[in-house]
């Protein structure tokens, strides 16, 4: 509750709206243009373009959670209990499951299974 005593935050809100809009516009522009050097260069089985999309998404998530959901005004311990848990579990799950998906793809390619698995 401590953070609620502040006055008006309108300016910050509109700034964050502009940041979010700009990020979205850049994402969409990149998604339509698909610059060849980003699209066809791969890093850790993902194209550079996809890495950019993912990083920009996390950047947008940061703005939404910190400014709109007002995590920037909460106690650090509270913030950690949410974002720390979420970041750790999501990264862990994503890494382990996607590596498994890639492995199954290899099984398709290199074994006698052809389509149904």
């Amino acid at each position, binding site marked *: 509750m401590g953070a609620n005593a502040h006055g008006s935050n309108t300016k910050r809100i509109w700034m964050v709206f502009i940041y979010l809009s700009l990020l979205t516009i850049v994402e969409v522009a990149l*998604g339509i243009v698909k610059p060849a050097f980003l699209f066809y260069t791969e890093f850790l089985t993902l194209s550079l373009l996809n890495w950019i999309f993912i990083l920009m998404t996390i950047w947008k998530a940061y703005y939404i959670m910190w400014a709109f959901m007002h995590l920037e005004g909460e106690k650090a311990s509270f913030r950690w209990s949410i974002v720390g848990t979420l970041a750790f579990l999501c990264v862990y799950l994503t890494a382990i499951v996607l590596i498994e*998906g890639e492995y199954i793809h290899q099984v398709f390619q290199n074994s006698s299974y052809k*389509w149904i698995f």
Partner: protein
Amino acid sequence: MGATVTTAATKEKVWGGGASQQPLGASYGKMMMWYFILSDALTFCGFLVAYGFTRFKFIDSWPIADEVFNHFPFLHGMNLPMYYVALMTFILIFSSVTMVLAVDAGHQMKKNKVAVYMLLTIVGGFIFLGSQAWEWKNFITGTYGAVETQGGQILQFVDKDGKRVALADFADTSVPNERVALNNSEAFWFLGNSTPPTYSVAQIQAGLEKNPDVLIRTQFDEGRHKKVILSREETLAQASQFKYVVEGANLVRNEYGHKSFADLFFFITGFHGFHVATGVLLNIIIFFNVLLGTYERRRSYEMVEKVGLYWHFVDLVWVFVFTFFYLV
């Protein structure tokens, strides 16, 4: 804690309630909303990871999102990937802004301002839901149609330049359709019957032979994000393998490619849409409470803040759905 025996030394370390020295500095309601959001975020993370898993599993045969989601209202027949979902993203971000402005007005105890911003948020929510319904309609109806083989693969049709060709453009309708829809008017109301596709397999096969320009495009990538297109001889050889005509999408098969693609699309965007609908409902309830002056009497608009958290969460999830379904 007052009823139990405590020593002076421990007294200051133990939280006995009260707003000023709460361990996490957040009220009970807000804290629980955050932890609900945490668990819900993990659920969505699980869904999106399932999508990623399926996609990596079929990495060389996954549909190209740009070709699936390329519609825009009032601009028929044009290839406009991404614009519509970008618009939906803006609608949701904007309704997030009005929501946070409502919370901000609540801090200043301005009842009318809170009500106006809540109303705008609700309107934004409805517009988003309508947009999603339109998106689903396009997805379910489909554009070009495709054919499924005995082996369960989806084959699409292209012309010599690699441009997509709709079934309607080459199907030979002079071949009699062996399957007809049974309608109430023919007194078949008592029979269960799924709607047959517009064209039969035989009509597609005959049309394929008559139109030398039509080629089959398979689900597989030849590298560089392009699908393999069969030669004319291979196309005609494949025709005997046709099993179903597929138009649009349902939970069993879809014209875009892999079966799991439509299932995951329906499930993930559907679950998100369900969250939006719930959010709109909560917003409406809070909106009426604001109008009735409930929070004015309580001298605190914290309830607006709590539903606000949920509403922003819905926006947050959409940001990720947008990336993984439409961009990546």
